[in-house]
């Protein structure tokens, strides 16, 4: 791949990345969240198209305009979330899309033969008839690898393959990769687990901000150097300075021994006028923590206190009543009703304020919507605009407007600036400061390390569902945070 560039509205995801893989090589691709790894691989797999650049295979340029073209070019993609049909058996999943037929009728015997041949070649055994939903994660991954091989893949891309595996399963996977490498199959190996790279990778490419900053043989890099390459930048200057928290401020939000799904025993507190940042890798459990506090998921255990008062979180209603607002990470799926207008979305969570006796006072509703549009500088022709037609940054402001009109005391921001342009980001940072000035407490989850470091009084690092370290803003360096988040340091 040479000079690959890709832009999304408002974001330049890849800025001319060149990347090569040799036959029989395992090439690791590392980088922070949002560095462009996934986008690069999606382009290779035909799930997205590059704006610029060429892809060459065996020195010949190829056009990969869809998943079929990628398959024909010998590229197999194994996403973190597998693409198996849950109710089909192992054999059916392996041959899916390539079912052997005899005169238009499925040839089950041939299918079983083909699948068994691949499995034997790999030296693994799987229950052939068991539906995919009843396989372990490691077994599903084996099925994915077999799928790629039966399609004659010569290059297999694996995205975070060990994220959900036990140590023994990881060993088995690595053995399998080594075996295939000996048969000249090439791998692109994406991982956040830096400590495992020396065992598996021949070369490592580091992506940062959509650019390939280094490609080196694995032996030439220490973990410390890797981390420095991944982070490798000064904090950008567009973060406004944070006002100091009053020394005598009492905790406004206290979370004690919170458990929810993967989240185990999380305890922390936030004072009025303070921003606490939750740092960590994607999937570390940060989102689950804020969702449990806000009642989006009902916690399995633990306590939430607001201003010293215990809050029984049974669902979003009880959290909202206690003054907790959750600004969710996925504004389209969870934050907005896209087909509704700016006005209707703005008032959705506090409609009772505009509808004494159940009938909506449209005049008051329009006035408050117009007021929020002006205050947050939402660029929309009027309050009746359907939010689907707004830009990402303006949609995010509508989500904020929804929670601002309720005078909540605690704001939980989950990826508040994902996918929006720099100008809108600064506006949202300033808005957070305005909330602090009003005496609010803020918890911010962000996968952009500079944002967490620049916009938090304190930083909590989350890994595998637990808080592993706490840093004051002055002590938090990117290297130290990444080291804890990736498990290199305790």
């Amino acid at each position, binding site marked *: 791949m040479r000079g690959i560039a890709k832009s999304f509205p408002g974001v330049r995801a890849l800025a001319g990345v060149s990347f090569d893989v040799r036959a029989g090589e395992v090439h690791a691709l590392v980088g922070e969240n949002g560095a462009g790894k996934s986008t690069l691989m999606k382009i290779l797999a035909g799930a997205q198209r590059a704006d610029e650049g060429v892809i060459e295979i065996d020195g010949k340029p190829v056009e990969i305009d869809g998943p079929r073209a990628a398959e024909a070019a010998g590229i197999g993609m194994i996403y973190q979330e597998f693409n198996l049909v849950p109710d089909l058996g192992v054999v059916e999943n392996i041959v899916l899309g390539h079912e052997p037929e005899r005169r238009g009728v499925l040839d089950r015997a041939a299918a079983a033969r083909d699948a068994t041949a691949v499995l034997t070649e790999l030296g693994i055994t799987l229950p052939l008839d068991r539906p995919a939903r009843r396989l372990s994660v490691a077994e599903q991954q084996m099925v994915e690898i077999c799928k790629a091989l039966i399609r004659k893949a010569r290059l297999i891309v694996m995205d975070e393959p060990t994220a959900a595996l036990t140590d023994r399963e990881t060993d088995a996977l690595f053995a399998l990769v080594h075996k295939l490498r000996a048969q000249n199959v090439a791998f692109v190996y994406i991982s956040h687990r830096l400590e495992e790279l020396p065992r598996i990778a021949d070369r490592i490419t580091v992506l940062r901000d959509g650019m390939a900053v280094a490609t080196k043989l694995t032996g030439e890099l220490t973990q410390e150097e890797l981390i420095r390459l991944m982070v490798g930048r000064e904090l950008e200057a567009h973060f406004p300075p944070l006002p100091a928290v009053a020394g005598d401020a009492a905790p406004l939000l206290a979370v004690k021994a919170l458990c929810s799904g993967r989240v185990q025993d999380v305890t922390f507190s936030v004072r009025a006028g303070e921003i606490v940042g939750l740092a960590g890798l994607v999937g570390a459990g940060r989102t689950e923590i804020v969702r449990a506090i806000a009642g989006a998921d009902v916690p399995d255990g633990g306590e939430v206190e607001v201003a010293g008062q215990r809050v029984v979180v049974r669902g979003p*209603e009880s959290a909202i009543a206690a003054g907790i607002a959750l600004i969710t990470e996925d504004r389209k*799926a969870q934050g907005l*009703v896209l087909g509704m207008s700016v006005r209707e979305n703005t008032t*959705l969570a*506090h409609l009772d304020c505009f509808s004494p006796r*159940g009938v909506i006072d449209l005049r008051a509703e329009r006035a408050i919507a117009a007021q929020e549009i002006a205050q947050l500088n939402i660029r929309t022709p009027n309050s009746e605009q359907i939010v689907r037609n707004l830009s990402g940054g303006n949609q995010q402001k509508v989500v904020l407007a929804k929670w601002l009109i309720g005078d909540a005391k605690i704001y939980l921001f989950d990826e508040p600036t994902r996918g929006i342009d720099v100008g809108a980001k600064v506006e949202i940072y300033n808005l957070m400061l305005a909330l602090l000035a009003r005496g609010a407490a803020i918890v911010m989850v962000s996968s952009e390390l500079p944002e967490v470091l620049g916009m938090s009084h304190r930083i909590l690092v989350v890994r595998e569902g637990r808080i592993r370290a706490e840093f004051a803003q002055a002590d938090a360096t990117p290297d130290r945070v990444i080291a804890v988040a990736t498990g290199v340091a305790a």
Partner: protein
Amino acid sequence: MQPKQIEVKAALEASSAQAQEAARQRALLRTSGVIAALVAIVAIVDVFSHGHFLTETNLTNVLRQISDNAILAVGQTFVIITAGIDLSVGSLIQLTGVVMATFANAMPFDGIPLVAATLLVGLVVGCFAGFVNAVPVVRLNLPPFITTLAMMLMARGLAFKLSNGQPVPLNSSAFDTIGTGFFFKVPIAVLWMAVIVVVFAFLLTRTRFGRYVFAIGGNEEAARLAGINVHFVKTMVYVISGGCAAVAGLLLMARFSSGSPQTGIGDELHSIAAVVVGGTSLMGGRGSVIATFLGALLIGLLNNAMDLLNIESYTQDIVLGAVILIAVVIDELRKRYLRA
């Protein structure tokens, strides 16, 4: 919780007026297709039927004929806006008709009290059936297609069982006014329909409940996270639909002076057709009671026009099916055009 101090400034007033205008235009665009089709049919058929179509008697007749389907479709509109569907309403007409007629015949009193008591019994049966429809949908996230299909079979079977398959003739003449009476040239049944359309249009567009119905249909998760009691609202739309079926059951029972287990079979599909022709999306999140009424009116006028033009009933079904298909295709194309 109190709303923040609301200062209505001149500038806000201006943008508010502009916003109102935008909302009005959008509403007009949504119903303009149906209205255009209505005008076209009226004009064409009036010419071909040599003036028999646009007479007061005939139009009054059409309105009476559509009254039960329009009422059914109003309830169906609420369900469909939440991205659900209610297949049980036809059978609930059968069931409530039989139950109400049996009840009325057993009561010792007559007149208005009898009508009121009978309606109440019908509403209890219809609303309870709607509640039963909703519980598995809300609690277990089962598809409403399945739960209301099951209710359709159960209610139909129960209607035949209770009546031994025979119509139950009404002993009292108290229902005749509703069935055949007039109020200043307007059939009483049409007044019932008008009241229900107006009340439920208000409920849907002007109340908190109505707003929540749209929010749930548009994005259920966002609605839940906004603190909306999604379970309650979704349950209520099925209860409303069941209640509307009971009212339609009463009108039909009054018109035929009997509660028949045969009356209402297949009506759920006619109600869905009216909703869809009115432009409400089966994907949820969009729709309007007024548009549904216009949809029911369009279908009613078409039926009536074909009767006047002596088109036999088999052909009528073919034409109706084609009209439904064309209506939704045009609606989709128009939406794409507007978006582009």
